[in-house]
């Protein structure tokens, strides 16, 4: 079979699987959050535990009226959800679910992932600007500030496993963790993992860093003027990005598909580890109040960036002295 056809088919399958996963991850978050708040989450739709709730939400959003404000910048407004969604879905192209099972296992996988995932900021700003709404504009400006500030610590934290493994290729990084996950690496691994989680929270606009969408101040931030299918594209993009960074975290720090049992169990372990990171982020999200934008930026520039820079240099030093943990 010609390679382009092979890639197209795999890409199509991965895309559908990812979108399906993303919709059900919203249900997982709602049930998990509900249990932490002494209540039951979605229940009746798809009785008995809301299994059809994501489908119902998707159908509802598809049937809603598509409102475009009169004074909005039409081209920018209409293209923003797509410009937001495409990078968030594109990152899944480089993620290997098992050795050889992925769309494109680039040998600059991590670089591609990090670079493309930060393109979402363009779509975000387009949405805020095109809505012609002061709340959306404020939110978009805050977003640019925040995501750009936190991309640097995110990259540095993600580079620690790269340096330890000596390769940017994701499957090589996972193979380098055989028998010893990077998160278990003394001091450097744990600190890098914590920094990665914090940067994930900020890059995803999750509480305590969700000043962007601050529900009680900016009422959905840059999404405020979107309704119907465009809104669902934006939500899809957000949760896809969330899932993508969870996958990345599982690959970089928790050993990807490595786990006891036969080889075909690999993708299952991988999914479980990604879910673990996702639930960890959700747990933090539902436990804290948010902090102000100037405080968020202060944490990033004054605390997280120097810390991750030092961490990266320390890792480089260790690797220079000991050699890489390549297979």
């Amino acid at each position: 079979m010609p390679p382009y056809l092979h890639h197209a088919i795999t890409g199509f399958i991965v895309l559908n699987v990812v979108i399906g996963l993303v919709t059900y991850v919203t249900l997982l978050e709602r049930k998990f959050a509900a249990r932490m708040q002494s209540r039951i989450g979605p229940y009746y739709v798809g009785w008995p535990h809301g299994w059809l709730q994501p489908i119902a939400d998707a159908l509802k959003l598809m049937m809603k009226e598509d409102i475009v404000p009169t004074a909005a910048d039409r081209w920018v407004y209409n293209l923003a959800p797509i410009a937001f969604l495409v990078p968030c879905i594109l990152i899944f192209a480089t993620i290997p679910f098992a050795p050889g099972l992925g769309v494109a296992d680039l040998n600059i996988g991590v670089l591609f992932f990090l670079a493309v995932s930060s393109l979402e900021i363009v779509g975000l700003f387009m949405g805020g600007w095109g809505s012609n709404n002061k709340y959306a504009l404020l939110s978009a400006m805050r977003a640019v500030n925040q995501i750009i500030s936190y991309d640097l610590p995110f990259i540095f934290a993600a580079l620690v496993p790269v340096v330890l493994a000596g390769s940017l290729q994701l499957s090589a990084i996972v193979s380098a963790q055989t028998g010893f996950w990077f998160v278990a690496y003394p001091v450097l691994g744990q600190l890098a993992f914590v920094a990665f989680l914090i940067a994930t929270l900020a890059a995803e606009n999750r509480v305590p860093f969700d000043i962007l969408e601050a529900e009680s101040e900016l009422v959905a931030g840059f999404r405020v003027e979107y309704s119907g299918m465009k809104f669902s594209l934006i939500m899809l993009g957000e949760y896809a990005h969330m899932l993508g960074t969870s996958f990345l975290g599982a690959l970089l720090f928790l050993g990807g598909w490595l786990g006891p049992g036969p080889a075909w169990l690999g993708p299952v372990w991988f999914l479980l580890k990604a879910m673990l990171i996702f639930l960890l982020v959700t747990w933090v999200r539902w436990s804290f109040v948010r902090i102000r934008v100037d405080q968020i930026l202060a944490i990033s520039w004054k605390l997280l960036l120097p810390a991750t820079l030092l961490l990266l240099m320390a890792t480089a030093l260790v690797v220079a002295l000991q050699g890489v943990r390549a297979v």
Partner: protein
Amino acid sequence: MPSSPSFWAETGQLVRAVGRALGVTFQNFFRRPVTVQYPTVKRVYPDRFRGILALAYEKDTGEEACIGCRLCEFICPPQVIKVEMRKAEKRNYAKTFTLELYSCEFCELCVQVCPTDAIIMLKTFDLATADRRELLLDKDRLHALGLQHEPSWATGNRLRDMQAPPKPVKAEAKAGGKAEAKEPAE
């Protein structure tokens, strides 16, 4: 971040505080949810629950208890009750009795003043409808509601007995019968 004397002390405190907050949410994860799955499960309403209004019948004769005295109409703060009296030989009746439930405040003052315990409140509130005209209750509907649902504890005489200052001769029993209220000295 507020400046502090020691970076490490502050970081340690932050880590502890984060751990404590996460611990509280974690603890709540394992508590039973407090959700009551209405309408399959209904919670137990207390005796004095103030639900929708209804008209009652007299216990001994089975006749309508309302004598059309209009005390409830006069006391209702939002004036949702309208009564017309029909005179008869032994006692009066209500010719028409309309109650606009959509404007009712559920303050229980009409129940309080009723001399014959005719108007009562029920232990249910479930009368939601898409058409507001269904909430304009007339006499037949009020009587039918009274037969369909469980009445609440409060009736006019019971409430007035509970509030009346006791006579010095008779000992006050809360569940007891009618004690004639003496006008207290002010």
